[in-house]
């Protein structure tokens, strides 16, 4: 049953013995799924509570390079889906993991990715209970694509909704901005920039529970993935029909991320994060929310970065370090490095 191949071939996706061997060697010993049926059959008592709701989300992960400082596609795949559940106020329970593997991908890489996923899942308190494997021809996938879907339970009485944000609510982030985006840019190699940066990839389920316990009036939260803080806040402003004003001076940024942005002409507000969320909390509970975040390792750098306002509904502005004001719009397409 042991896999002798070093590289994944089309045979490993064929549904036959080779595929069985791959699954039994790489995935099963680590994920230890509850049964060997096609579906996982699960129950959690919290789901049965009157007023509880099932939360369900999915995401695909296609990052290049597949491994980078601070994580790999597996870490992203687990944290991304856990966080999508957590920011909605759900306690994450179970994940599925589907792998699309490019012919020629090293089996050792799969082992590492799967190990990362197991580690993250254990830390987040979730189980990976079902999955799928496909192999595609060389060139059809960038070594490896991963799709995870996640299921969680929203306790009765909890209803986080962007549309409920009101003027006066405070915007809080749990840590520095842009680490993931800057790390990936540096790791891609084509810009030949070296920076001692790591992705901020982290599961935020425990952090969200701590915040919701300390500040039950928390209105909504969003993880600041593609499009960065700016995009997340724009979505919230639009949904709630409120304006948002950010404070440039308050934005937490590492020196190196600032440096990369200055060199490439990028705006850190739009860089992706994989372990940073923004939460809107009523002013009276903002202090408690901050304290709760700071009590967790993923939230040590938590800081208030702005607030919702009644002016310019749907639009996000920023008070610059200069005392001026500029609009922070939705990103148009991708941010590109510039020389001008």
């Amino acid at each position, binding site marked *: 049953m042991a896999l002798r191949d070093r590289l994944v071939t089309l045979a490993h996706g064929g549904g036959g013995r080779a595929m069985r061997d791959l699954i039994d060697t790489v995935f099963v010993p680590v994920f230890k799924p509850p049964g060997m049926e096609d579906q996982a059959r699960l129950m959690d008592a919290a789901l049965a509570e009157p007023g509880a709701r099932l939360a369900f989300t999915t995401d695909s992960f296609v990052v290049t390079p597949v491994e980078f400082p601070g994580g790999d596609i597996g870490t992203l795949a687990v944290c991304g889906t856990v966080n999508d559940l957590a920011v909605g106020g759900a306690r994450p329970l179970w994940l599925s993991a589907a792998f699309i593997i490019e012919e020629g991908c090293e089996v050792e890489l799969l082992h590492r990715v799967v190990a990362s996923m197991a580690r993250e899942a254990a830390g987040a308190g979730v189980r990976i209970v079902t999955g799928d494997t496909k192999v595609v021809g060389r060139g059809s996938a960038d070594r490896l694509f991963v799709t995870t879907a996640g299921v969680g339970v929203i306790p009765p009485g909890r209803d986080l909704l962007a549309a409920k944000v009101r003027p006066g609510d405070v915007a809080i982030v749990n840590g520095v901005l842009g680490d993931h985006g800057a790390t990936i840019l*540096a790791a891609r190699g084509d810009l*030949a*920039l*070296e*920076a*001692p940066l790591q992705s901020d990839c982290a599961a935020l389920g425990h952090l969200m529970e701590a915040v919701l316990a300390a500040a039950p009036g928390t209105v909504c939260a969003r993880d600041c993935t593609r499009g960065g803080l700016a995009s997340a806040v724009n979505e919230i402003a639009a949904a709630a029909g409120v304006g948002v004003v950010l404070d440039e001076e308050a934005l937490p940024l*590492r*020196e*190196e991320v*600032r*440096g*990369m942005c*200055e*060199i490439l*002409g990028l705006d850190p507000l739009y860089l992706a994060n994989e372990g940073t969320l923004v939460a809107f909390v009523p002013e009276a509970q903002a202090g408690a929310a901050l304290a709760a975040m700071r009590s967790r390792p993923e939230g040590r750098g938590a800081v208030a970065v702005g607030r919702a306002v009644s002016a310019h509904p749907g639009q996000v502005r920023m008070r610059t370090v200069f005392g001026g004001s500029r609009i922070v719009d939705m990103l148009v397409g991708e941010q590109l490095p*510039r*020389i*001008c």
Partner: protein
Amino acid sequence: MCLGIPGRIVAITDESRQMAMAEISGVRREVNVACIAEGPLEVLVGEWALIHVGFAMSRIDEGEAERTLQALRDLGEAQEALEAMTQGQQSLEAAR
């Protein structure tokens, strides 16, 4: 045409190709130093230069930088003094 950023030369990497390692806020990138080289390249280590598209284009003159900042600070003080005088004058006139 303009995105240039001050960086510090931290090491010479390839003397024959006139390449050096520059550091900008902790980020490192190999740059060409032909434009700022005057003789042996080791002299450049520790110096600041304006980096644009992978080239160190001009040395940053520390003295000039300080002079510019000082002129700005002097302006600031002069402005404060002016405002203090104006306020003082206005208080005097109000008191009459």
